[in-house]
């Protein structure tokens, strides 16, 4: 019907109001998220060289191919052009070690889309963040490969692959530790700051953590860069600022309380926040629209839960990193969180504060609503700020 002249007598398509639309689409939102990820990818490649570049490309390609297959076969809604599978692929690559064997990366990408998304019906219907589903799968399937980090800023990283990257499918990857030894580097520097703290009790300094610029230390993308990209997304309203803020606040507060109780056994909260994948998870993973709550109150609860769980898993479990499981648990809790944080409809919040309470100036001739048997349904749910 678009662009076709409509004369009286011609078929007219009748639509309901509104007759104007905000200039925003799913494709546009997703495209902007991809744009904001590009500087982070660039930095990742700068840190780790061609292995990282090939890892991002291979995993994203695997995600796109899987998406295409399921869209073509009609088992999944959505379309290829909406960039959502691209985001999944890039995020998945950023959470994996740069020297992760490419074929394992492809498996992770396939699992992410097939089990994380297509199984539920495609875009918008998934319960768990697809990238994290893929990562959780390979964490269980390839525990050695996923824990093998190489130091960043290795000399010759743009001309040479990390040997494990090019492993044949189903074969044992080349020994990275031996390769590092051959390069006259200490294998310990191939551990992430979190693993170093957890297993060796060594804390990295704040500057190293924030910029990720110090050489020879296995760290992920720079938290400062991620935060800047997140601010861009939040300012352009492509992402809700509440969730990252709640996660960082809650994780920081929990870590600070533990640090205050026993500064010797627990690291400072700053280390907690900027080491590992917490910032990447808070800005890009937990904010995945389909798997996070839609209610403003729910976003705070969800973020707080993830922050708390992250610190608890890091401190009290056998794993050095806890963001992934914390977010997956948060995803699982989303429907419940939404139910208890459903916003109060207009005109039903008489209990919130005396100022907003509806008053009924009655006089003798006026039939009260109670007399007329009018009932205001009471909502049985948690209300923030409600005094019971």
């Amino acid at each position, binding site marked *: 019907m678009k662009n076709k002249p409509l004369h009286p007598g011609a078929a007219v398509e009748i639509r309901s109001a509104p007759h104007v639309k905000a*200039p925003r689409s799913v494709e546009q939102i997703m495209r902007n998220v991809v744009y904001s990820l590009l500087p982070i990818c660039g930095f990742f490649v700068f840190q780790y060289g061609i292995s990282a570049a090939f890892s991002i490309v291979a995993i994203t390609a695997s995600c796109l191919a899987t998406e295409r297959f399921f869209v073509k076969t009609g088992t999944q809604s959505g379309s290829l052009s909406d960039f959502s599978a691209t985001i999944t692929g890039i995020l998945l690559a950023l959470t994996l070690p740069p020297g992760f064997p490419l074929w394992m990366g492809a498996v992770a990408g396939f699992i992410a889309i097939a089990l994380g998304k297509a199984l539920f019906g495609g875009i918008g219907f998934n319960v768990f963040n697809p990238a994290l589903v893929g990562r959780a799968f390979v964490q269980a399937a390839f525990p050695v490969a996923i824990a093998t980090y190489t130091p960043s800023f290795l000399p010759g990283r743009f001309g040479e692959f990390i040997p494990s990257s090019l492993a044949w499918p189903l074969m044992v990857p080349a020994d990275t530790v031996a390769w590092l030894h051959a390069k006259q580097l200490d294998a310990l520097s191939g551990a992430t700051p979190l693993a170093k703290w957890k297993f060796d009790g060594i804390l990295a300094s704040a500057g190293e953590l924030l910029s990720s610029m110090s050489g020879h230390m296995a760290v992920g993308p720079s938290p400062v860069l991620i935060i800047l990209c997140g601010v861009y997304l939040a300012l352009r309203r492509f992402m809700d600022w509440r969730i990252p803020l709640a996660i960082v606040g809650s994780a920081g507060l929990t870590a600070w309380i533990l640090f205050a109780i026993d500064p010797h056994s627990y690291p400072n909260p700053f280390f907690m926040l900027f080491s590992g994948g917490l910032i990447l998870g808070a800005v890009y993973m937990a904010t995945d629209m389909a798997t996070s709550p839609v209610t403003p109150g729910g976003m705070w609860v969800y973020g707080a839960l993830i922050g708390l769980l992250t610190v608890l898993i890091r401190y009290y479990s056998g794993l050095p990193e806890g963001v992934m499981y914390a977010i997956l648990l948060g995803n699982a809790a989303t429907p419940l969180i939404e139910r208890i944080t459903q916003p109060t*409809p207009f005109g039903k919040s008489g209990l919130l504060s005396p100022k907003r309470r509806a008053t009924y100036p009655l006089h003798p001739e006026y039939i009260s609503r109670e007399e007329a048997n009018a009932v205001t349904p009471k909502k049985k749910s948690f209300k923030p700020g409600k005094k019971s």
Partner: protein
Amino acid sequence: MKFMKLFRRLKGIGWGVHPADHKRPAADAPVRAMPVSARLYLPLQQHLGGPARPVVLVGQKVRKGELLAEAQGAVSAPVHAPTSGVVVAVTEVAAPHPSGLTLPAIILEADGLDEWTELRGCDAPFALSAAEIGRRVAAAGVVGLGGAAFPSAVKLVGAARARVAALVINGGECEPYLSCDDRLMRDSAPAIVDGIRLMLRATGAGRALVGIEDNKPEAIAAMRAAVAGIGAVRIHAVPARYPMGSEKQLIQVLTGIEVPADGRPADIGVIVHNVGTALAVRAAVREGKPLISRLLTVNGRCANRPGNIEVRIGTLAEEVIAFAGGLKGDGLGLARRVIGGPMMGVQIPHWRVPVVKGTSGILALDATEVDGIAGRETAPCIRCGSCVKACPMGLLPLEMSARIRNGAFAEAIPFGLKDCIACGCCAYVCPSHIPLVQYFAHAKGELAGQERDRLRAEATKKMARQRQERVEREAREKAEAAARRKAGRAAAAGKQGEPACFNPRPD
């Protein structure tokens, strides 16, 4: 407390949307008065409530302002002749409605003289009693000119009975494209204030709060100048945020009180009237003039000369557009014809529908305006939550639409289906282009239908039960009567000393 106020101001309103308003240049162009058309089509139902009943005959000559159809029922409004002429038919005309169905209407052929009937004005309206003002407003057929077209007199009298404390005057005009209220406030601010004071008199309210969106600085200045020295009327600039012109939202912003979800503004001591209505009330009471014309906006990218036009009720939209300057390229790029604003107005299939009392705008939208972005294919919901943030009623549109899609209409109610005001904010912001308002309208209709069916079934059941009872009662009464007769006969036989039967003691 001050801190909280500051916080609230920083936080903003927190609901609604702000579409590009497209109010200028139409709002800045001076008002043009349209000459009377040759034929006027006057639907008998231009308001909420019962349709008016014709009191003229075909062929009858009427003068401008004469009663054509009288109010019928408690909530109704009369219809008057917008010009002098002859009644040529009492028939059906196409309604300004998407269905294109017809409405009973009176067709009036203008004689070109445009002569007034005798008007019963009043030079000292403030000496009139509240009830008399209400009567005059009712007789003039004034209805709410903001769009809902609720008979104003009913509201005024009801407000007087409920002893409302404050009158809220809606100068929000939050719908994009429309600027007729803006224009009225700029051009006739003193008359509007006079009308507001008459409404205060009619309702007994102590003060009036006029809310005007802050994207109309000229109107705010004009109204502020007009109320100088009048303590009872206050002008408030409110943030330009759709749907600020919605009754409950405006009350909340101006008074800080939320109207209860299942209540009406009068329950909290407030009533709301539009600025255009205030002007019509003044004309009705001071000059005795009935509501026979209104200001409306012709706008949209297809309109050659967007602007505000004073139009007689009953003029065809086609003629209004032709007078306004026609359509660009003879309407070749026209994508949608809309009566009212773009957020809540209705799309009509053709222009041959009359202007009624509630018509605030005629929009000729082209494809770029309607689509917003290329294509409008509905994509799956990505649960972005935009609709939740936009909803001025605090509902969860995405949850409701998911349930309605599955046909589970009743399950949408806990998420607020019955509180939905169909403002269109959710559908406006939806990045997946889901026609949420359409879903809700459909579900509301289905639920209303189910409710009707249930009531009908109950009524049938009740009638069947009553019939059953009646039949049983009649049978019982018949049996009792027979027994009584029998007993009577037996008693009579006993008196005569003859045994009635073998039973020696008949009972």
